């Protein structure tokens, strides 16, 4: 009985386009939902999570000395052979890199150098905007690597940003208080 009733109801629904009306109501509702578009680079920028593997950076120890001991383990483990390290010995007898170059054009950002490093000297940070017109500019030397931004702390958020055409860096963040982008997506 109820089955037959369902069938009749389905037919009545079809006759009056219940399914089409449902679809229209759904799309109408979505028209007034919050947009998930991130207005990068005009207004917003995505700050990656702390585990994000972006541009490499070299760390310093508490005395301000470079942590790297130039053991060349990173160069050994690198699957695309893009790290070149030349060591030297300073006056105290410590090993440090005289030259530490990463060819980011060839790097595949696997993070193995970070894992291999015995001195916790190299890591992959949060920066992801380093496009260039020349592949030669993508070979980053020791001193540049020391100045690169570290791991993200406020990761997983959208922050206010604006287009900056005067510097090489496209986006300059002005505040660090982000809102949680994923939470704002409407779920129905």
């Amino acid at each position, binding site marked *: 009985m109820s089955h037959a009733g369902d069938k009749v109801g389905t037919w009545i629904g079809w006759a009056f386009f219940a399914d*089409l009306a449902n679809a229209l109501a759904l799309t109408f509702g*979505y028209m007034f*939902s919050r947009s998930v578009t991130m207005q990068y680079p005009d207004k917003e920028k995505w700050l990656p999570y702390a585990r994000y593997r972006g541009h490499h950076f070299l760390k310093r120890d508490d005395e301000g000395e470079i942590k790297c001991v130039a053991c060349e383990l990173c160069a050994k483990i690198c699957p695309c052979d893009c790290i070149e390290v030349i060591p030297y010995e300073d006056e105290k007898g410590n090993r440090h890199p005289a030259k530490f170059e990463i060819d980011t054009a060839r790097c595949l950002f696997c993070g193995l150098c970070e894992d291999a490093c015995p001195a916790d000297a190299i890591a992959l940070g949060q920066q992801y905007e380093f496009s260039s017109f020349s592949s030669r500019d993508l070979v980053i030397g020791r001193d540049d690597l020391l100045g690169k931004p570290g791991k993200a702390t406020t990761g997983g958020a959208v922050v206010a940003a604006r287009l900056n055409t005067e510097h090489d860096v496209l986006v300059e963040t002005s505040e660090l208080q982000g809102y949680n982008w994923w939470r704002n997506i409407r779920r129905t």
Partner: protein
Amino acid sequence: MELIVALGLIVFKVAFLIAILLLLPLPLTWLERKIAGHIQQRMGPMRVGWHGLLQPVADGIKLLTKEDHIPAEADRFLFKLAPILALAPPFVVFVAIPFGETVSVLGAEITLYVSNMNVALLFVFAVIGIEVYGVIFGGWAANSKYAVLGSLRTCAQMISYEIPMGFAVIGVVMLAQSMSLLEIVRAQADVWNIVYQPVGFFVFFVAGLAEAQRIPFDLAEAEGDLGAGFHTEYSGIRFAFFMVSEYAIMLLVSVLVVILFFGGWNGVLLPLPPILWFVLKVAFFVYVFIWFRFTFPRYRYDQLMAIGWKVLLPLSMANIIITGVLLGATAAP
């Protein structure tokens, strides 16, 4: 002197109408992309002007400056003729469309229509039938299989759907006892035709969707399976002609729906000026067209034909018979 003033007025009206019809696709494309964006939880164009308002202007400049490409194997004469044939009829049709009764400007009464034909409805259907030639010629002349397939589909679709569209209107003509659009609107001063002719409205609207080649009946230019249908090979300003024609027909169907079934410029409840009522109703139906586009999938070709011949045609026939019987029954004593 009288004649010169009358002629000048007509020229002014026609120029005004053409300007509006040529410029209206700009806000309509913006609106369509914005509505599409928000339905799909995007933002649509945002970067050119405030909320992308100038995006259609940028697109227009792009289309104007693009290469006007004609395929080597194309029939050059027909290829050049087709966009004009597609563009002209929707513009011509608007000559017969009234937008209101009269307005007084500087003490003179000016009618809000170019001409009040007593067979305006017939004129509209006759002229809009020519538009299909643009599509067929365009598809044929390009000498491309996608274009030919698209124009074959369009040909069958337009002819199939013009029949129920014409039949659906007969009920309205019977109620108004006139084929003049002005008289039809005047006859709806008290009760709109939608109350008497819901089936007629349904048939007309669905057939209008098919005539305007909008989703769910946009088989002519089904991007997924035909490239872009009949205008696959068109580029630059000729492509823009087809786009403008498409929007003009969409507008025309909205205007016809409003005039025939929704009381034209007759308002209800709110005492707004008649022309504003008219614009609001037309805007609503244009929105419905866009809303449909981003809600429904496309019908299969056999389904399209089945809907046209097996559903809409019998429905419109039954509508005529029932309207006639009821009219006869009420007018008998």
